[in-house]
């Protein structure tokens, strides 16, 4: 049963996943490429700057993959108004769990790519004294970011159109309230606070923020 679900999900999301695997493998290698031509003190500075600059792309890659795999897990069922899924002889929670599990298995591929790419990248450059390579930690963090955001997007995309309407309606209400209260002279930042609640600990998207360093002190 799980294999059947896994196969369908692979078929629906194989193109973004393959691109994700390639990007995940290439990112660590590209982040240290410029460093090999620099020596001495500047090598340390250049390495940290390069690794930090490229590091921005890990959470973007992870979130994009999580979004696509999460959305594609339900897209076919949404098109068929869930009639097929509901008529299968499995409880609804079990079916949702199978779909979720299949996505986790598929997303393990880009996580592995980041890990292998990180190990290869750090093995091919000379790391200056005082700096250390963290390919496993980076891959673990990438995995955490991917799986947390996947769980979030999977849950959102499992919702009905009506549910999406409620969410958008709630956001629109917050926006209108903020505009009215600000016009009345009271400075309330509801949207900003909402965003902060999501991306600052203990918000679920906190895992995407911060520095993503393959090589650090």
């Amino acid at each position, binding site marked *: 049963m799980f294999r059947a679900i896994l*196969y*369908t999900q692979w*078929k629906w999301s194989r193109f973004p996943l393959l691109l994700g695997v390639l990007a995940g493998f290439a990112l660590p290698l590209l982040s240290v490429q410029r460093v090999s031509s620099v020596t001495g003190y500047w090598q340390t500075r250049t390495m940290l700057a390069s690794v930090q600059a490229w590091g921005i792309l890990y959470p973007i890659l992870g979130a994009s993959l999580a979004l696509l795999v999460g959305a594609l897990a339900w897209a076919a069922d949404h098109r*068929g108004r869930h*009639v*097929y899924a509901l008529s299968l*002889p499995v409880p609804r929670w079990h079916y949702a769990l199978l779909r979720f599990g299949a996505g986790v298995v598929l997303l393990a591929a880009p996580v592995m790519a980041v890990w292998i790419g990180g190990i290869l990248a750090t093995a091919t450059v000379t790391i200056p004294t005082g700096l250390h390579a963290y390919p496993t930690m980076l891959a673990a963090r990438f995995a955490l970011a991917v799986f947390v955001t996947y769980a979030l997007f999977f849950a959102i995309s499992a919702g009905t159109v009506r549910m999406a309407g409620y969410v958008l309606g709630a956001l629109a209400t917050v926006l209108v309230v903020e505009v009215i209260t600000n016009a009345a002279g009271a400075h309330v930042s509801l949207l900003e606070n909402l965003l902060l609640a999501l991306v600052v600990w203990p918000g679920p998207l906190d895992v995407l923020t911060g520095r993503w360093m393959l090589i650090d002190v």
Partner: protein
Amino acid sequence: MSSAIEIRDVHYRAGKAFEIRDLALNVPTGSMYGFLGPNGSGKTTTIRLLLGLLRPRQGIITVLGGSIPREAPRVLARTGYVPELPHLYPSLTVAEALHFHAAFYPTWDWKWADELVLQFQLDRGGLLSRLSKGEMGKLEMLLALAQRPELLVLDEPTDGLDPVVRRDVLTAVLDYVSQQNATVFISSHLVHELERICDWVGVMDRGRLVAELPMHSFKNGIKRLRVLNAPALAGDTPFVVLSRDAANGSAETWVVRGWQPPMSQWFTGVGATLKEVIDLDLEEGFVELLRTFRVPQA
């Protein structure tokens, strides 16, 4: 007589425009039950309720001895379902769709599935999104049959199909029933189609079950009568008068239900003359039944 499907006092509302009220329905085990009704009468909603796809506000639904929706997965494992509209994943090929579906049914019969693929002339490598309506109809039927179900629930399975495909699909169902003694619940608005194959019939209109009876009673019990010197008020008749139309002169045309030949004596007793008894086919009976049902609400 045991029941494959039993529905009691079910109430379901979808928005403000449509509701199913006080629905009671009984499908005997081993029967072919034709579920008739015009478009929008609630046939598909009833089917979705009995499969646990929708949840009623109140009432009891029992299918193959299991309570719905609580035991829906166990019941669905023994039920083949062909929905009104194709519901399979269009990005899969025929072979992939078969493998996906088979993974969920422990009773799946690969040998028979392969035979049906050949019989229905389906291309295993063909994408579902590129199948014709007829091919898709045959594939849906194949998936429902190859799981060897005890109950087949078919929601307008031949709607929009050409006569050749329609015959193929219905033949496959009849073959299966003759082998397995399965129960078939088939909805349609194509009355003639059900007339040939069903032994029970239920008629649905505006969210209510109008009639439920054996097919032979339905076919034989509805008659058109030509009556001379009919009384102004029919009074206490041994049959149900569905409609009365004045014809030329003193002749009237009555459509009645529950007719039996000895009842002709009733006309003599009220001073009228029964000139002719005309058999109505199922479609005419169906139309008259709906017309009578709708009159008080008009």
